[in-house]
Every structure is written in structure tokens, then in C-alpha cells.
């Protein structure tokens, strides 16, 4: 049995260092710039192909061009399609129009595991199957996972899930295998517009800041970064986004918090409750005294 470092993962902003890697390469991640996503789904396909993620139903959802519906055990990249009666910046909208005849805009966004700085899935995993890599990413070890399912409701983004018929939990590995030989993740490689950018996180953050100010300068005032801030409820995301509307419009939580932030308070209350239970039982016997 290994006693895992119980040093709270809420410490520090460098997850690989917090996880105990003394000497490690820089943290890597994704910057997904949804303003240039064209909804081609090459990322979804490349991810499924490379990672041999099984088919999980060929259905039409009626949700615009999105027939994947959301992230899960068998969908590690998911392209969202949102149709809105609005203009995007100064764009001239095309032929597509909404029912009342007004012009619409299309928002497209490729969602993925956020590889949180403070990852709830990793914190709650009882087997140590989920681990922090030297690159700061979060990966499931499929030979260890026993399918307890605790990571599933722990994730504040609804990313990880249990695979039907397999029983284990699966999610994006940020192509840990490809990174180990110096290649970039399959989704970023396949993206034709560089909407999905892979690289050292520090560099991606600078690039995202530049892109944001460029968009604001050009009049796209609704552009915002999501998951970029190291001070947010999950300590910042390893995979962050440039969005053109509120996060919940894309199915993302507006202010996610890693559940283990409150765990010390939970344990304290469990201790008080257990002592109260023991005390009450003692009291009901003490009052009666030994039986005659």
C-alpha cells in the first residue's frame, strides 16, 4: 500500500511539483480558441481514431449539427453547435436564418477535459488509478481502475464517465502516449484552423491574452477567456478556452469549484457528528444504569 501524498492539491499553482515531481518538464495544455472553430469535427474523429475510443451510438440529436451531445467515457473531444439570433462582431451573416427570418450566428466550440490544477477526479479516486503526470496533466490508468465511479460525480465539468459494458472510467489523456515521443495530441494535430492549440501552458496563456485583446480591439466585445485564471475555483484549467458567450451557453459551468476545497470542513463535521453519535449512545445507556 502506498500512502499517497495527502498534501492538499489546493497547494501551489504548479500541479506536477505539488504531486511530487522534483524535476519535471513545463506544464502543457490546450488553448481552444472557439472564435476560429469551423465545426469540422476533425478533432473528434482524430481523437477517436488515435485513442481507439469505441463507437457509442450513431444518433441524430436534433441539436444543430451536434450529434455527439457531450463529453463522456466514449467522447473525449466534443464540438458544440449553438445557433443564436445575433451577429458575431461585424460579421455579415450568411444565408442561414432563424424561424422569424432574422439572421443567426453559429457558435462552435470543441470541448475537452480541462486537466484542472486542482482536479477533483484525481483527489477522490480511491485506487490511485487517476494520477498527475510529470507534464501536469491528469490520466486514468486503465489497468488499475476498478470502476467505483467516484470520479464521475466529482468532476465539476461533467467530463469523465464510466464506459458501458467495460465498467471503467475513461477520459482524455491529453494524448500522454503521443507526448512521450514528442508528438502533439491528435486533436490539435488534426485541427485545420488552429482553433485547438497545444503547448506549454505559460506560452498558451500569453497567446490567449494577445488574441483576446485583438478580438476586443476588433469589436468582438463578447469574447472572454474561460479557465485561464489560476485563481478560479479549480486553480485554473490546463485546457482553457476563448468563448464568445456565457460558459453555460456552451454547457460549461460558470464558476466551477473543486469539491475537495470544502473537504476539510466536511471531515471536521463528520468527526463532530461521529462523536455526537457515540456520546448520545453512551448517554442513553448511562441514564438507565446497569440492568438490575
Amino acid at each position, binding site marked *: 500500500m502506498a500512502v499517497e501524498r495527502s498534501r492538499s492539491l489546493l497547494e501551489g499553482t504548479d500541479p506536477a511539483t505539488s504531486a511530487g515531481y522534483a524535476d519535471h518538464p513545463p506544464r502543457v495544455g490546450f488553448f481552444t480558441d472557439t472564435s476560429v472553430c469551423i465545426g469540422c469535427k476533425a478533432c473528434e474523429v482524430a481523437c477517436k481514431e488515435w485513442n481507439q475510443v469505441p463507437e457509442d451510438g450513431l444518433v441524430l440529436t436534433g441539436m444543430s449539427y451536434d450529434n455527439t451531445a457531450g463529453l463522456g467515457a466514449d467522447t473525449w473531444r466534443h464540438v458544440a453547435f449553438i445557433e443564436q439570433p445575433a451577429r458575431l462582431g461585424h460579421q455579415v451573416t450568411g444565408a442561414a436564418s432563424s424561424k422569424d427570418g432574422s439572421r443567426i450566428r453559429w457558435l462552435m466550440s470543441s470541448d475537452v477535459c480541462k486537466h484542472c490544477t486542482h482536479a477533483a477526479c484525481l483527489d*477522490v479516486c480511491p485506487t490511485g488509478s487517476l494520477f498527475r503526470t510529470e507534464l501536469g496533466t491528469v490520466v486514468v490508468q486503465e489497468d*488499475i481502475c476498478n470502476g467505483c465511479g467516484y470520479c*464521475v*460525480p466529482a468532476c465539476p465539468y461533467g467530463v469523465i464517465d464510466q464506459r458501458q459494458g467495460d465498467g471503467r472510467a475513461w477520459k482524455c489523456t491529453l494524448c500522454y502516449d503521443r507526448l512521450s515521443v514528442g508528438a502533439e495530441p491528435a486533436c490539435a494535430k488534426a485541427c485545420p484552423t488552429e482553433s485547438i492549440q497545444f503547448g506549454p501552458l505559460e506560452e498558451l496563456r500569453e497567446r490567449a491574452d494577445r488574441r483576446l485583446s485583438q478580438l476586443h480591439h476588433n469589436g468582438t466585445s463578447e469574447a472572454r477567456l474561460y479557465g485561464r485564471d489560476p485563481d478560479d475555483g479549480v486553480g485554473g484549467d490546463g485546457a482553457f478556452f476563448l468563448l464568445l458567450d456565457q460558459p453555460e451557453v456552451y454547457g460549461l459551468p460558470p464558476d466551477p469549484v473543486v469539491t475537495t476545497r470544502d473537504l476539510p470542513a466536511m471531515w471536521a463535521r463528520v468527526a463532530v457528528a461521529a462523536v455526537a453519535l457515540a456520546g448520545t449512545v453512551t448517554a442513553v*445507556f448511562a441514564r438507565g444504569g446497569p440492568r438490575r
Partner: protein
Amino acid sequence: MVPQAELQSYYGKPIINKPTWKAADIAGYLFLGGLAGAGSAVAGGAQITGRPGLARVTKTASAAAAGLSLAALVHDLGRRGRFLNMLRTFKVTSPMSVGSWLLATYAPACAVAALSDLTGMATALGTGATATAAVLGPGVACYTAALITNTAVPAWHDGYRYMPFVFASSAASAAAGLGLVGAPLTDTGPVRRLAILAGGAEVVTASLMEKRMGPSGEAYRLGKADRHNRMGKALTLAGMVSAGVLAGRSRVASALAGAALLTASALTRFAIFEAGVASAEDPRYTVVPQRRRLAAQSDPSS
């Protein structure tokens, strides 16, 4: 009611993935683990104060409930053959890991205590096991509150300040019910008192939790969770009253009071489980509180 106007969503899809746990296994375990844990504490009290009838029924039923708990937990795993991986690490950040180690110590102690009592063999070992189970029991009954509240499920997480007390009182109420059902009337004095204290605490703490947890409390007042919740509270009150008034005089009344408390405790756990799943399936429960938090941060005066 949460105003609908505040909400935007992606085609009404949930934000978080709902628990994959099966209700019979996991809600069942929350009940059985509580019954076993509090039952072991009662067995310890019965042993010390010389109430062998009460000691026997609580030791035996706790061992059975602990065994069924383990079976339910293993049954719920996606890879049952790998259940021993639960003891591969010890992580205080994972209540499931802490609970696995707790159960790995508690369940054998429980079994030894029961076997020694039933067979009359190895009485010294049996006494030690009874004491061990009595000390660990309250922890077994309460840690599960941290287990479910340490998730992103709104109706669980948002109740974390109250859940351990709901679980402690629900477990004690179930253990009192067990004593009332199975022990001879001459032994049931302490569990009658426990029934009234714990039953009252169960109703009060659960009601406080639902009221004070914010918008997520609504999940406890809708659908299946609401039905189980109401039925549970009514049965708790009925069990308390009959435990206090009639159970000291009539074996039948005692058994009925105990059965009501046991059923009520199970219903409380199923209601909590169902409210959690319902709150995970509806993006409102995730988005609205987060939006309010952001609004409060940007406008501290409100």
C-alpha cells in the same frame, strides 16, 4: 422556485455527469452502513451495562448489515474482480479510500463480535472485537456523509454542513429500531430513549439541511425524493411516538415502532440519493448557484 429567466443552457443538457452508482447498491449501503455502525455502538453499550439480549441482536444484525454493505459495494463496481485495488493507496482526499480502510478494520471486528456472542467461544476476543466495532461504528455511520457531499452533485455538496448530522441521527434511529424489533423488552430501555432522541434529530437535521442548502434544496421537494422524504419523516415520527408511549409495555408495539424507524432511515437515505441524482440531471441546479456566487462577488453590497 428557481426563476427560469436566470438560466441559459446547452439544449437543456446537464452540466455535470450524474452518478453511475445504482440506487439499490449505494443508497442501500448508506442505510446498511449506518445501521451497522450505530448498531455496533449500541452493542458496546449493551455489553457494558449487562443487557445480553440487546447485545446479541445488535451484534448479529450489525455483522449481517456490514457483510451486506461489502457485498453491495463490490456489486456496484464496474470491475468487481478489482475490489482489492481499494486498498492500494490511502488518500485522505478520498472519503471512499478512508472508508475502505475503515470497513476493512470494522467489518472483521463486527463478524468476530457476532460469532463469539452466538457461539460463546473466545469471549475475550469477542469482547475486544465488540469494543473495536463500537469505537469504529460511529465513524462508519458518518463518513459516508463526506463521501457523497465531496462531489459536484448540487443537492449533496450544498448540504455538506448538515449531512453528517443527518447521517448520524438516521443511523442511530435505525439502530434504535433494530433494538426495538429484536431485543427482549427488559433490555430496550436505552434504545427507546435513543429512538426519541435520534428520530427527532433525524427529522430536524434533514429539514434544516433542505431549507438552508440554497436552491439545491428544491430537489428534495420534487418527485421520488419528495415522496420518500415525506414518508420517511412520517414514519420516523410514528416510530418515535410508539417507542416512547407503547413500546415499553408491548412486544408487538415495540416491534412495530422499530420497523417504522428502520424503514424511515432507509427512506431518508434513498430520498437523499434520489435528490442528488435529480439535481445532477438538471443544469439549473449547477448554473443558478454559481451565477449567484459570481454576482455576489462582483457586487459585494448585494
